[in-house]
């Protein structure tokens, strides 16, 4: 069964006819070629696929594309301001908060949602917030530092 969907992705209006079972992450990666959003598991555990839907972080592997119809979707590709990195992206680079980079888009999208509800999170608050994001490279130490630095930069911006 095909359904007609339309949504705004990173500020651009998009319409398409998709198989009704199409997941939002597949719509983004395969249909829209926005490959910054990644798939690391099939049980909604790893968080590599986190995007924002109407400003809230969601796992795009756990939502049908049709459920996001009429929504505002932001992916990692929509975070930077043109050539200039978002302060959170810059903080991840400055604090070595990533290694292989595969989980990073999802972690950054989660971090941005955290800062939207808590502009000055403690280490413990960050660690608990990241319950839905797996990283196998960094041991989380520098992810925590990055998010604290990114939050600080966003407060001061």
């Amino acid at each position: 069964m095909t359904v007609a969907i339309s949504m705004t992705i990173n500020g651009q209006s998009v319409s398409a006819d998709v198989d009704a079972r199409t997941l939002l992450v597949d719509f983004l990666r395969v249909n829209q070629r926005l490959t910054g959003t990644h798939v690391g598991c099939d049980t909604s555990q790893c968080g590599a696929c986190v995007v924002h839907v109407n400003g809230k972080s969601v796992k795009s592997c756990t939502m049908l594309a049709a459920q996001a119809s009429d929504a505002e979707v932001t992916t990692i590709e929509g975070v930077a301001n043109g050539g200039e990195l978002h302060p959170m992206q810059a903080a991840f680079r400055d604090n070595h908060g990533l290694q292989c980079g595969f989980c990073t888009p999802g972690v950054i999208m989660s971090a941005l949602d955290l800062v939207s509800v808590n502009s000055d999170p403690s280490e413990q608050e960050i660690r608990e917030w990241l319950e839905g994001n797996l990283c196998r490279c960094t041991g989380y130490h520098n992810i925590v530092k990055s998010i604290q630095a990114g939050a600080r930069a966003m407060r001061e911006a």
Partner: protein
Amino acid sequence: MSGTGIGASVRRTEDLRFVRGAGKYTDDMNLLGQTYAYILRSPHAHATINSIDTSAASQGDGVVAVFTAEDMAAIGGIPCGWQVHSKDGSPMHEPKHPVLAEGKVRHTGDPVAVVIAESRSQARDAAESIEVDYGVLPAVVDMNDAVTADSTSVHDDVGTNICYDWALGDPEVVDEAFSNAAHVASLDLVNNRLIPNAIEPRCAIGDFDQATGQYTLHTTSQNPHVIRLLMGAFVLGVPEHKLRVHAPDVGGGFGSKIFHYAEEIIVTWAAAQLNRPVKWTADRSESFISDAHGRDHVTKVELALDEDGKFLALRESTLANMGAYLSTFAPCIPTYLHGTLLAGQYATPVIYCEVKAVFTNTVPVDAYRGAGRPEATYLLERIVQVAADQLGMDPAEIRRRNFIQPDQFPYQTPVALVYDTGDYDASLSKALDSADYAGFAARKASSKAAGKLRGIGISSYIEACGIAPSNVVGSLGARAGLYEAATIRVNPTGSVSVLTGSHSHGQGHETTFAQVVSEKLGIDFDSIEIVHGDTDKIPFGMGTYGSRSIAVGGTAIVNALDKIIAKGKKIAAHLLEASEADIEFEDGQFVVPGTDKAKAFGEVALTAYVPHQYPLEELEPGLEETAFYDPKNFTFPAGTYVCEVEVDPETGVVDIASFHATDDFGTIINPMIVEGQVHGGLVQGIGQALLEAACYDDNGQLLSGSYMDYTMPRAADVPSFSVDTTVTECEHNPLGVKGCGEAGAIGSPPAVINAILNALAEVGVTELDMPATPHRVWQAIRSAQAS
């Protein structure tokens, strides 16, 4: 150039794309006319395949083809890259590892058939209609059962489940030392089976150009040249110039992406059959039952000591799981990367180690971060702790008393290796200071007042990186060389392309290697590009594993740079009308010292490509050099980790109160990156100690087959770390580097378990296996109290 040279924490080049989601991982690629493969896998651990009916699947919507083993009869099995010999001199058993199961399946997840369709969901849908008639057989799961005479055989044509029975050392000499010892400590332990779980699932895209006969494989690999060699020469029979293997950005490997996998063969072969690209991407559930697993040893270890706590001898006997088939480097992991590490940091005079490798109906087991060395470190650092406890010695003191001393290097161990440098007491002392070891008793008392049990644990590890030299590993059974290659291509306007056989999948080579070049050539960091991961671009390479990239790949780069500088001196001499012997290269300038004669590196580069004023009769134009570097020896990073835990006796929950690491990695190129490598390794080791276990039931079903069942370390499970270094430079490579990728995963598990057992000593617990889950800790406390 100090800002971007050796020793600077340069921010990573690769991050500029990764933080934007602009990395290019294999699954991000899509080729024109691409089809999708879905692999039907065995639901049984051990069964005959009586028949496969693919007729309905072939008629499925969008289905392009369905293949079984019959269709692939003309190609070879998956080769093994290392042949170990048993102690009686006989070669290991090496049963065929078919690409698709031939008549029998031997582990859950064994590939049985492949469906290729226009979309991934069509391929998956059609696979559901394949009918396989299985004759289920008893599964061989437990290694102790597998080695009994009446066990079912995993491979009928082998007739035993013992792949090899290997030994190192002289058992009689060791037995005699034991019989004369004042004290013997002994320990039975399990090194738990782990699943590597790089967050990027494996992916492979095959492509074929009918007009040229050119095959291309895009794949998630740590070593594309090795895959080209194995698949081209041993499986498909395609020569190197007709096969390109490309491994673009790779989302973590930890060993699991070293190996040559069936899916790489399937997509490459099928692309030629269909004359269309074929893409396969693993679901995470598939990763669990198709990526090679790690560890899985069952071990007995004994340590003989004199009355002063000096080590007299060590004896180990281990069963090492190989799984159902021999993965690429599986046979060398529990032997040459394990038995040879048993001296650790200690001057133990004699050591004997015997290892039986065992076939079981489980996923193949191979190298996982550390590979053999974590297993050696774990048993050694556990038995040292047991001995200290039994003799009433301080665990730091017993280590100090047995350390190889700085004036003993080079040090020949009784297990083949020769350590070049080290200062083990320096690392231990620094780690103990950092951890405030002296203040532990007070902290323990305050934990006790709060109803908690506090413990401290030490692990002094050694590891061996950059396995080499090739002629030695060849004599030990390696079917490949273990050098590395690099080409320095100086472009006409002075920018530099470095083509390296090392592969970066998180390590940051694009930054670290560029720092080495920036330092050596005195040129701007931003004018250097690091090219890796493509057999069409790189002359050759053995890839990245065993913490070898900077020690082996980095040295190949340095050696090629030296050739560039040597040729540059000839060109500069001509330009400056000076003798070549008078030219020196300093800070990016070819100069005649004591004069104002100088030519910038860029001028020399341009002259090499526009050779108007050039000694053409003596020197070729151009400025490009290649070096192959084969190390004389391993490098030997070492250090001490101190872990402090607090255990809640009511729940069995272990909280890591602090973790202090001091490592000696030799020269450090980028401290920021090195610290990151340590952090990541520590959490993989802590994951093994506290959380992770691949569990099979008696039927060979993987119970921990998803992230809902296999406990990956999450951010709230682990602490922040205190990481420090000491330095003794490696003496046999020009950078003095040792390698840092695996140390954290090697050294940390025994530090954690020693700390937990130290905490639990006051309630009478003396034995605990990994992972020390709350349930297991709680049970240990309860059963100690009951007895």
